[in-house]
């Protein structure tokens, strides 16, 4: 079977108002398989958001090609099919909510696709269940907390039944408990619902939760591997403007002090177990 997402020589240039252009992506070749949980990291301006906007045809390549589920985004008649397969959740939940109640907001996508009312109802109910917002169905989304609003945004995407959800810094405006709830939901959607997840994040501790980490720099993917492989390259990451997840930072401090530890503790629990 073809990979779920594939890019070949993907290049994208933003035109500048005055003259010239900014090249945001420079010949990206990447393959993402069905069911993967991929974290995408890199400094501000490295091209992360530009890249993922090609995965649901919000942007189209200046050169090169993108296929989603075998469908080329360069073909206008296939773009809606691509968007049905790949949903997006953005940083600021306030910019994504459109309706007066939670359930109307979630119904927005299926309604736009012209589904019969009974099917819309079923999808909204299922999405509410999946994000744990059944009790809030009739609430106005504006009155919810930031974390709850983000869950409404996820439910809205889920109701369109995508195979893949892209999360573009979904936790950066949330407080720690809402952030944790968000990460738990993302993991559950990946493990239990088989949804392919692409998570853009500035938190290395969040990236460490994924199966695979892609590192971007100046419009290119410069590192690609498991979290433990990627975060073993401390100097390289630092040169790219990134840092290490807390457990790995701590393990380095301890090693420098003469303590031996496996360098692969990606979570606090793993670190505590290694110490005790």
């Amino acid at each position, binding site marked *: 079977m073809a990979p779920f997402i594939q890019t070949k020589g993907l290049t994208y240039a933003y035109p500048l108002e005055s003259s010239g252009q900014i090249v945001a992506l420079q010949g990206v070749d990447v393959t993402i398989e069905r069911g993967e949980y991929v974290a995408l990291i890199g400094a*501000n301006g490295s091209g992360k958001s530009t890249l993922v906007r090609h995965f649901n045809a919000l942007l189209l390549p200046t050169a090169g090609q993108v296929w989603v589920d075998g469908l080329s985004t360069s073909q206008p008649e296939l773009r809606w099919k691509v968007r049905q397969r790949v949903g997006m959740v953005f940083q600021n939940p306030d910019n994504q909510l459109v309706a007066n109640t939670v359930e109307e907001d979630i119904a927005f996508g299926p309604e736009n696709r012209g589904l019969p009312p009974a099917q819309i109802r079923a999808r909204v109910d299922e999405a509410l269940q999946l994000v744990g917002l059944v009790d809030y169905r009739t609430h106005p989304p504006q009155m919810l907390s930031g974390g709850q609003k983000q869950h409404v945004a996820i439910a809205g995407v889920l109701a369109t039944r995508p195979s893949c959800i892209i999360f573009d810094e979904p936790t*950066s405006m949330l407080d720690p408990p809402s952030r944790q709830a968000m990460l738990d939901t993302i993991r559950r959607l990946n493990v239990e619902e088989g949804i392919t997840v692409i998570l853009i994040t500035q938190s290395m501790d969040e990236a460490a939760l994924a199966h695979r980490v892609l590192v971007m720099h100046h419009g290119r993917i410069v590192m690609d591997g498991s979290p433990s492989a990627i975060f073993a390259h401390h100097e390289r990451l630092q040169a790219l403007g990134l840092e290490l997840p807390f457990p790995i930072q*701590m393990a380095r401090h*301890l090693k420098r002090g003469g*303590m031996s530890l496996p360098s692969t503790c990606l979570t606090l629990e793993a670190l505590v177990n290694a110490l005790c």
Partner: protein
Amino acid sequence: MLIEAENLNHTYALGTPLAQVALRDVNLQIGPGERVGILGASGSGKTTLVQHLAGLLQPTEGRVLLDGIVAHRRTPAALAQRRRIGIAFQNPEDQIFEQTVFREVAFGPRNLGLSQAEVATRVAWALELVGLNPTLMGGRIPFALSGGEMRRVALAGILAMRPHVLILDEPTAGLDPRGRQELLRRVKRWHQEMGLTLIVVSHNLDELARLVERVVLLKAGRVVADGPARRVLSDAALLRSAGLDVPHSVALLHALRAAGWPVRTDQLLPEEAAAEILRVRRAMEEIR
């Protein structure tokens, strides 16, 4: 400047069915040169509180005094006090509107009625402070800059007013790791060199631990703790009861303590926590 909140209460949409209490009986004093973190879960009243401290809101009850002057009044004395406070809201770059970096940073000083030469001096000084070269950057269009650069331009516009108090609401949100570290270093330097009072709203506990010496913890609009950062940020039960997490280092030390290691749990920074773990480990080996 001495900032005092006295019995401060704030209710949004008072007298309507949508009324929401944001602050309840807040009493607080912040002295000149202090570095204070305001901490709390989403909706705990952090942003409302700092807007009051800057004199931008009218209290439902109680008052805020800036060097003894009631902060929100429409009097020349109150205005003069408010001008000594610089406040950067969340994502301050969203408020950039001028055509060039120079004009953006010059907007505030111009409103003070300063001479052109004085405005130019202030702009150059402020851009240097945020690490942007005035000659190279002054003529640039702000919207063509990176997110991190735009944030620095917005902060330069605030610093150009030569505030005595700097209030930062989630200053590093949305920045990449390097941008965060650089901004934190700069903020510390401004505090030292300008003698600023620093008030920082954040839910990034690891950052607060590096930046502030005192933490005010809010829960549902009330101050539930106010004390040294080391004490408040290492009190896991208190932080969790306020709907927050604990700093990574503190979480690790608490987990080790639960596993029988006699470690102190008030080491907030990774390097401090590592030193504590190494110390205890050595002690444990010697006993063996």
